[in-house]
């Protein structure tokens, strides 16, 4: 489990400091898809970058199963990072490497496997994300969805305990988004990974959101499950959730038919 306690972060903005996170507390559970949601500019990405250690918070603690990342020295941080996989918004695949090269990269750098074992493990990960046949393609030859799947394969190559995904569905069509969401959810449950997904896609929230953290203007706005998200009275969250016609329809349906946990299929 990852626990963040009272995280504050500010950045230099000209001559003054601009605070982005105002003391966020949250828990991210093992074997669950933990979603961080919120509007653009609300501080989601800054929160994730603080959690993975790309930014150093001004205040607060970030505990990976009790180990505080903010107090780790370089060596400890390096060890911890071997337990972390990350899927970036733009996939961040290495342009000069093929899909196989990308997936094998962390294995070559950190595992003690023989080249044959590395190849076998990489092939397993590629098969797992349904990219069989694309091993020798370069990232520029792949579609957006395939690039995301290749990036997932690379992220899970070292069997991470923690998987971070920064807007995994950005730039993808709804159907491909569902494929990526389901893949992330399956992998999370299969391997018991603590998965943290940063998104503003409500389809993802309703599809795979088991623990949802709503960040609003740098504060923790709400925390709950996808089942609870309709039955809450947080105005900011409602403005976010019901921003699209689809979810406004769902809300009307629920108001007419009473609160029910069954969500109607959109036609």
């Amino acid at each position, binding site marked *: 489990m990852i626990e963040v306690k009272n995280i504050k972060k500010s950045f230099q903005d000209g001559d003054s400091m601009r605070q982005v996170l105002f003391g966020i507390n949250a828990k991210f559970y093992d074997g669950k898809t933990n979603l961080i949601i919120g509007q653009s500019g609300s501080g989601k990405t800054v929160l994730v970058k603080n959690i993975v250690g*790309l930014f150093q918070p001004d205040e607060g603690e970030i505990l990976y199963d009790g180990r505080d990342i903010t107090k780790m020295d370089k060596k400890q941080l390096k060890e*911890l990072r071997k337990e972390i996989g990350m899927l970036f918004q733009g996939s*961040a695949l290495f342009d000069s490497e093929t899909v196989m090269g990308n997936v094998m990269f962390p294995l070559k750098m950190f595992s003690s496997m023989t080249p044959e074992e590395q190849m076998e493990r990489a092939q397993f990960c590629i098969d797992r994300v349904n990219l069989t046949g694309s091993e020798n393609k370069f990232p520029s030859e792949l579609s957006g969805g395939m690039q995301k799947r290749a990036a997932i394969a690379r992220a899970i190559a070292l069997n991470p305990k923690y998987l971070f995904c920064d807007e995994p569905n950005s730039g993808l069509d709804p159907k491909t988004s569902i494929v990526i969401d389901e893949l992330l959810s399956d992998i999370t449950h299969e391997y018991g990974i603590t998965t943290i997904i940063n998104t503003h896609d409500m389809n993802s929230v309703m599809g795979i959101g088991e623990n949802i953290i709503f960040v609003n203007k740098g504060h923790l706005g709400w925390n709950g499950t996808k089942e609870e998200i309709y039955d809450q009275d947080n105005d900011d969250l409602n403005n976010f959730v019901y921003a699209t016609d689809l979810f406004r329809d769902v809300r009307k349906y629920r108001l007419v038919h009473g609160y029910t946990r069954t969500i109607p299929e959109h036609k």
Partner: protein
Amino acid sequence: MMLFKALNGFGEYCQFLWTTFGVPEKWREFFKRYTNEIYKLGIDSIPLILIVSVFIGALCTILIKLNINNPMLPRYAVGMTTREIILLEFSSSILCLILSGKIGSNIASEIGTMRVTEQIDALDIMGINSANFLAMPKILGLITILPVLVIICMFTSLLGGYGVCVLTGIVDVDTYLYGIQTMFIEWYVWFALIKSLFFAFIISSISAYYGYTVSGGSVEVGKASTNAVVMSNIMILVVDVILTKLLLQ
């Protein structure tokens, strides 16, 4: 304010170098990248060097002949002066100014693109020292190969001069050959090679720094690439003056 900015930039550059020079994560991977960089930065530049140096050598010979057409000077002075210019300045400094455009922009744009497409963040997340992983093979690779390129440049420039003598008869071929051998000072070759080591470090490290610290998008990558070339050129000229003073006087 500008001084503060410059000092701040220099501090960041030193910090970048401090992070860059460390023990590689995997030596095998490092050597793979190192040899790849030698090929990419050095071997790939040979056609450009051949073309530029042949023409510069030819031009030097023609211009020297035109400008020292004095009966008081021996005829072999053309070959000798061409050789001195090529050994002392062209094969190292001017060649490096030309190469900083090709190699410097290549390094800055490659690393800069990796930065803006989050590939460097991906390396950091994996626990890899990204500066060390990306920049060190480039810096050491260029330091290794640039002296070789300088030697190639020396030969082809002198060959350019020889070619123009053969083709135009501006100077007698034997006189030219005598000129390029007469009063030869071996130290000038070492001087050019020593300078090239410094210039290789300047080009690769400054360009890697500019690429590594890019933030934003493709426009910023372009700016970083330009800044890398400009700063490399300025530093090459500054260091050239210092080394010439230190090594030749």
